[in-house]
Structure formats: C-alpha cells, structure tokens
C-alpha cells in the first residue's frame, strides 16, 4: 500500500500509486532449443550447418538456436516452392485457396495469446501492442485476402490474371508476424507459392507460424520459411524466384533494386520514412498529444511510418510542448510482457547503437533534448522516450530515419510552409494532419507527398487500406485491392476489348 503524505488539514494525498506488476505468463509459449528451416512442410537441418542464437532483447537472454540458411538452403526452398506451384497450387481452385487462408486466419485468432507472448518475447514490444494490434491485424489480413482469393476476376475486371510463380519475401523485425501476414496472405490469395525470410533478430513467430500452416493442412511447399541474416536475404534475391517483396531499410532496398535490374523479376519495396506529423493550432489538443505519442512511441518508434518529425504551428508550440512533456512522464517503460507497459525494449544492440549515435549527433548539432524521468532496466536494450526541440530542418535528426523512440520537433507558420517542410525529405511514406477544419485536411492531403495520410489519428492500419510509399520510401502497395496487383500477371481480355 502506498504511503500517505499529510498536507495541512486536507485529506491525505497518496505519495504514490505503484501499479503492481502484471506480467502475461510465458508458459503458453513452448520453445524448441533448436529450430530447422521450414521447407516442403517439414523442419529440416540447414545444409549450411550453421546456427545462431536469437535473444529476448529485454534481458539479452538467449531463447533458441536458429538456422543460418546458406545459398544451397535457399535454392532448395525455392525449388520446393516451384514444385509446389506447378504440382497443384497454381491449378487449385480459387475457393480451395480461400479455404486455407480462412483456416490460417482462424487458427491465428485461436492461438492469439501464444503469438502475442512470443512476439513480445522475441521482439521486445509491449504485450499490450502485440495483443491488441499485431496479432489481430495479422489475422485480419488473412481473412481479408481469403475473401479475394475466389473473386480475382471481379477485383480486376476485363483483365485476365494469373499468378507469378514463386514469391521471395523478406520482412523486417519491427512487426514480425504482421509483416509476414502482409506478405503471405496476398501472395497465396493470388495463387503464388512463397519463400519467406524473417528478420535475423525476430524469427520465432514465423517459425511458430509454420505450425499453423501444418495445422491448416496447407499443401507442403506452398510456404517455406528460411531464416538467417542479410546474406540469406541476398541469396534469396539472387535465386530463381519470380518476384521479390522487401520491407526494410532504403539502403538494402536500393541494393536489391540494382541486383534485380534487367532480370525481369518483379519487385516491390516498402522502405524507410521520416514522416511529418503536422499539428495546426485549431486541432483538438489533448487528442493530438495522444496522436503524437502514438505516432512516435508506438513500438518504440520501430515503425517505418512513425511520425518522427513533429511540425507544430508556432502559435500553439509552447502549450503543446508542455502537454506533450507532461504526457511523457506517464509513459511506462519496462518489461514488454507486463500488461501495463507502454514502451518496451529496443529490438537489438545494433539498433540501440544506431539510435544512440543519432541522438548524440542531435545534441552535438545543438538540439535541446528532453527525456522524462524513468528508470530503465539494467539488462537488455533500452532507450528512454526522447523529444528534441530547437531542431533545424538541416540537422541529421530531422533528415535521417532514427527508427527509435526519438521525436524531432520543428515549427511552421502557415499551411504552405507546413507542406513545404513536410515534403522536404527524400522519403514519402506517411504523414499526419491534425486540425478540426475538414477543408484543410483535404487541402493538405492533396499536397503532401506521402503514400498514407492520417487525419486526426496516426498509425492506424486496416487490411482494406493500401499502404506504401513515394520517393525513397519505395513502390508498390500492400493491403487492399492494390496489394494483390504485385502478385499477379495481367493480360487484357481480348474478347472483352473487341466486344466492347
């Protein structure tokens, strides 16, 4: 019980109300000591003979040994996927494909707690998010594309479509299961087979997903999972796939594009971002503060569409910053499995180093740093929620993607200036606009160069809504009808064209 502090003749005010720890139990997750590669519906030993350890980033405790797939392993996986494609999957009736996708979606829902715990354990994200966002959205993506599988001719009328073949998919570590769903669901709905490489640091939910595939009795070889580091990804890019879908850094995305130039392989890239979250002085302030917090501290800022550049109209700057700083003091940083945690662990040592390097650069360049008082755990990778004020457009922290819980605050005077500053970046993935004025939302949305624009909200996702970037944030869309297109080849339907 909290101690009471006596203040004059008034009723005592408690000195603290500490929420007792409320950890989600780890018991539900059964980890193997060592995993294999999932090829042809079986876990197989890697021909490379190599394994590496995957960690819990909140404690640096090793969780399991993961195979490091070499080129030979990748070739085997791609060959298996090719065989599964030609041996039946491409000829399977669309309703049959839908059946498996519906099954997968339902099993994900049934096993949602297991996936949520594993996702937090291996990735460091708060259980509140994996439970309420990652896992339900992943299931929703499978449900959504299951619905399209037998309706493709209505999705793209007057165009005859056919699957591409084998899709090679490389996903990042920030939303391991959700990104897997974004990739696999449309690929299968369109009739392709898949070789997917999870991120090096977060392979466990993809490996648990293999169990779901077996439970759903998906034909062997339709989905294959190869784990490993960047070398494995490079091998997949070079392999005999028909398409590469990549989500990750702009640097790697560019390398992939160079590699694929002239090969005829299709490519979609979902890369970095440095989104402007634009706050007008007539917005609903307290809700805008929530949107700012959700925009940059959601998933420790490990979000490609994070609202990492806050553009505040100067007339509201001071009160807004006061509100924001006050709000940061209530953020609860700590154990990802605690149900009351708002901000979890940084995903890896490497990412923490990068954040620390950029934050140091920000301080050196003259920006003013604010961090709320919070006690970070001693073990594991942690970074306190951070706000930089006094940031100039030219500072590195205003230009480069930090991919951490670090917000750079800039100001603007007029809507024109807001648009100009927001677009003044090589990226173009997302943007946020906060104003009570509907016409201004539309005016801004027409001018912002970003694939996703949120009005009076931030970081909201739905399977029906396409997601993707402009400029160096990539090309191609995931989600919605748009998300099917990159997995299909089209021919105009000549009979229809001639018949008019």
């Amino acid at each position: 019980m909290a101690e009471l502090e006596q203040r004059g003749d008034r009723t005592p005010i408690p000195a603290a109300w500490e929420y007792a720890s409320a950890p989600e139990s780890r018991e539900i997750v059964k980890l193997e000591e060592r995993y294999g590669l999932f090829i042809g519906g079986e876990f197989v030993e890697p021909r490379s003979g190599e394994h590496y350890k995957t960690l819990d980033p909140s404690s640096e405790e090793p969780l399991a040994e993961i195979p490091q797939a070499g080129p030979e392993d990748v070739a085997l996986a791609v060959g298996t996927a090719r065989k599964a494609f030609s041996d039946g999957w491409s000829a399977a009736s669309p309703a049959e494909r839908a059946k498996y996708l519906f099954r997968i979606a339902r099993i994900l829902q049934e096993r949602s707690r297991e996936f949520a715990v594993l996702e937090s354990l291996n990735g460091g994200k708060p259980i509140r998010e994996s439970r309420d966002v990652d896992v339900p959205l992943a299931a929703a993506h499978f449900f959504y594309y299951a619905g399209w599988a037998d309706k493709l001719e209505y999705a793209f009328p007057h165009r005859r479509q056919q699957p591409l073949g084998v899709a090679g998919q490389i996903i990042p570590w920030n939303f391991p299961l959700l990104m897997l769903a974004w990739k696999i669901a449309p690929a299968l709905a369109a009739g392709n087979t898949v070789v997917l490489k999870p991120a090096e640091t977060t392979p466990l939910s993809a490996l648990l997903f293999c169990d779901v595939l077996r439970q759903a009795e998906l034909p062997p070889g339709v989905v294959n999972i190869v784990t490993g580091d960047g070398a494995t990804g490079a091998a997949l890019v070079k392999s005999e796939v028909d398409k590469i879908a990549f989500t990750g850094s702009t640097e790697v995305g560019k390398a992939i594009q160079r590699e694929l130039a002239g090969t005829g392989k299709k490519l979609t890239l979902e890369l970095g971002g440095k989104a402007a979250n634009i706050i007008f002085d007539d917005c609903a302030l307290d809700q805008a503060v929530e949107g700012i917090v959700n925009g940059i501290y959601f998933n420790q800022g490990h979000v490609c569409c994070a609202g990492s550049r806050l553009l505040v109209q100067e007339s509201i700057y001071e009160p807004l910053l006061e509100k924001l700083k006050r709000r940061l003091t209530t953020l609860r940083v700590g154990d990802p499995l605690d149900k009351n945690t708002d901000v979890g662990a940084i995903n890896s040592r490497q990412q923490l180093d990068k954040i620390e390097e950029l934050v140091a650069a920000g301080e050196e360049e003259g920006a003013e740093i604010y961090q709320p008082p919070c006690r970070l755990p001693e073990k594991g990778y942690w970074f306190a929620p951070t706000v930089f004020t006094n940031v100039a457009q030219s500072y590195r922290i205003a230009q480069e993607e930090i991919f951490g819980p670090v917000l750079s605050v800039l100001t603007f005077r007029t809507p024109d200036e807001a648009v100009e500053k927001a677009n003044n970046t090589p990226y173009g993935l997302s943007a946020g606009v906060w104003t009570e004025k509907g016409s201004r939302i539309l005016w801004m949305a027409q001018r912002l160069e970003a694939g996703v624009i949120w009005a009076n909200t931030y970081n909201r996702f739905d399977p029906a809504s396409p997601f993707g970037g402009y400029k160096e944030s990539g090309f191609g869309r995931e989600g919605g009808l748009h998300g099917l297109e990159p997995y299909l080849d089209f021919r105009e339907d000549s009979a229809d064209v001639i018949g008019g």
Partner: protein
Amino acid sequence: MAQAPALPTGFELPLEPRLPRIGSVDQVAVEARATDLSRRSIKREAKLFALDLAVRMMDLTTLEGADTPGKVAALASKAVRPDPSDASVPSVAAVCVYPNLVQTARERVAGSGVKVASVATAFPSGQSPIDLKVAEARRVVELGADEVDMVIDRGAFLAGRYAKVYDEIVQVKEAVAETRLKVILEVGELGTYDNVRRASLLAIAAGADFIKTSTGKLSSSATLPVTLVMLEAIRDVFEETGRRVGMKPAGGIRNAKQAVQTLVLVHETLGLDWLTPDLFRFGASSLLNDVLMQIRKEKTGRYQSPEYFTID
C-alpha cells in the same frame, strides 16, 4: 445580477501563445484513449489501494421519490460504517439526498466526518426560475447540507444562452457561500464531447468547486471518455491558473472494476494530487457493495456471497 466578466473592449483575444479558450475534442481519439487506459491491469496491493480510495471518495446516494427517513437513516449508517465486519474499511465521503432528508441524514452521520450533500436548483431538470433555484440552494445550506449538488439549465445551454447558465451558477455559488458546490452538467443531454468541454469550462469559470457528470436520472452518464474530457478541462484550468477543481462522475458506475478504471484515468490525467476525496468523488448507490465485496476478496483470497453485505 451576476455577469460574465467582460474586458472594456467587450471580448478577449489571446495575446500570447497559449491554449485555446474553449478548444475542441476529437471523439474517436478521446474514446480510444479512454479504452486504452481502461485496459491497465491493476492487481493486488495496487487494487486494494484503489478500492480503499474508492470507498473514501464515495458520495453514497439515494435520490428517489420514495425516499423516507427510514431509508435515508439506513443509508447514512452504512456510509459511516460500510462494512461492520471489517473496521479497516473507511467511511465514505458523503451521503447525497434530497433537501427534505438532509436533517435525517445529518443526525445519523453526526460526529463521523461523513458529509451530507443535497441536490438543489430544481434537480434534476433545472427548469425553474432562478430565484427559486437560489432560494432552494440557500435553504439546503440552512438545513445543514455540507455540500450542494446543483444542475445547470441544459435548455439554456443547448439554446446557446451560455451567459444565462453562467449567471445562474454564479448566483447559486453566492447563495451557498463557503459550502462546497458541485455543478452537474448532465452530459447525457449535451450530445457532444465538445459541449461537455464547453460546459465544464463554463461551470469552472462560474465558480464550481466540483464538476459532476450526471443526475443519475438518464441511462447515458459517467462513461470513461466523458470523464476523461472533464478531467482534461480541469487539467487545462489548473495548468493555466493553478486552481484545483474537483471531479465527480455519477451514474452508471456500478462495479469496482469501473471505479478502478476511473481512478486510473484520474491518476494518469491529473496525477496523485487528485486522488483525494477533496478533489474526486464517485456518485453512486450500488457501487459500494461491489467494492466491499472486492476488498474482502483481495484480503481473504475468496469471494463471499452477496448476502454477507447489507442492502440499505
């Protein structure tokens, strides 16, 4: 007659960067925030702390046409000693009754520290001439009420006659003088969160010591988002002026879980300073027994039959 303060020029312009005078509320976002906070997991000692606090913050209420001295006496006795089998359970903050029953309540709680609150100003509708409302408020103080819960004139508010609403609160405040004044907005009739915010700021500006959600006579009352909107208005006034205004959600809070969720909202919006009966109350009738049941469960590890808790 009291008047809204006016500058010599007739209206006021913000001359420095600061919060908008009224501002607005985004419905989707405020509901999402309230839902997020309601998912806090409050366990063990943290829960016991909240339950104990909830008892100390309770305005145990009966506002029925059928209220009798017998009924009110029973309620007041319960207010003083909510759980006869556990002396560590504190008294509630106040009993809240109709004016005719103030004296009965007063006799029963005498010497206990439990306050007597009375509704006034043509409760629950507020649709009476202002002189009657003022007279009623003055009279309940004479009858011995420690606190007065008044209603605003929603008809005037919705017709845009904000000055009338404001003036009436100012006059009632003058009439009750030092007696604590809680101003009921009846949020269920205001229609939007924007209106809730506007009414909250208006009541505070007119001198409310507490703002209160509801009369308890409507089905839509003290929801978490409405409470959050009002707490944020209180916070804005505190940040700008340093003045601390109290909050009282009333109506619809029937179980301990809702009470704990509401306290989380207060804790994370206004901080520890508001976790006191001086600045926060629950208006409720059936809530108390559920809280008592949960307290006993936390202390003994098992639930007891509702029959062990008195019905008053």
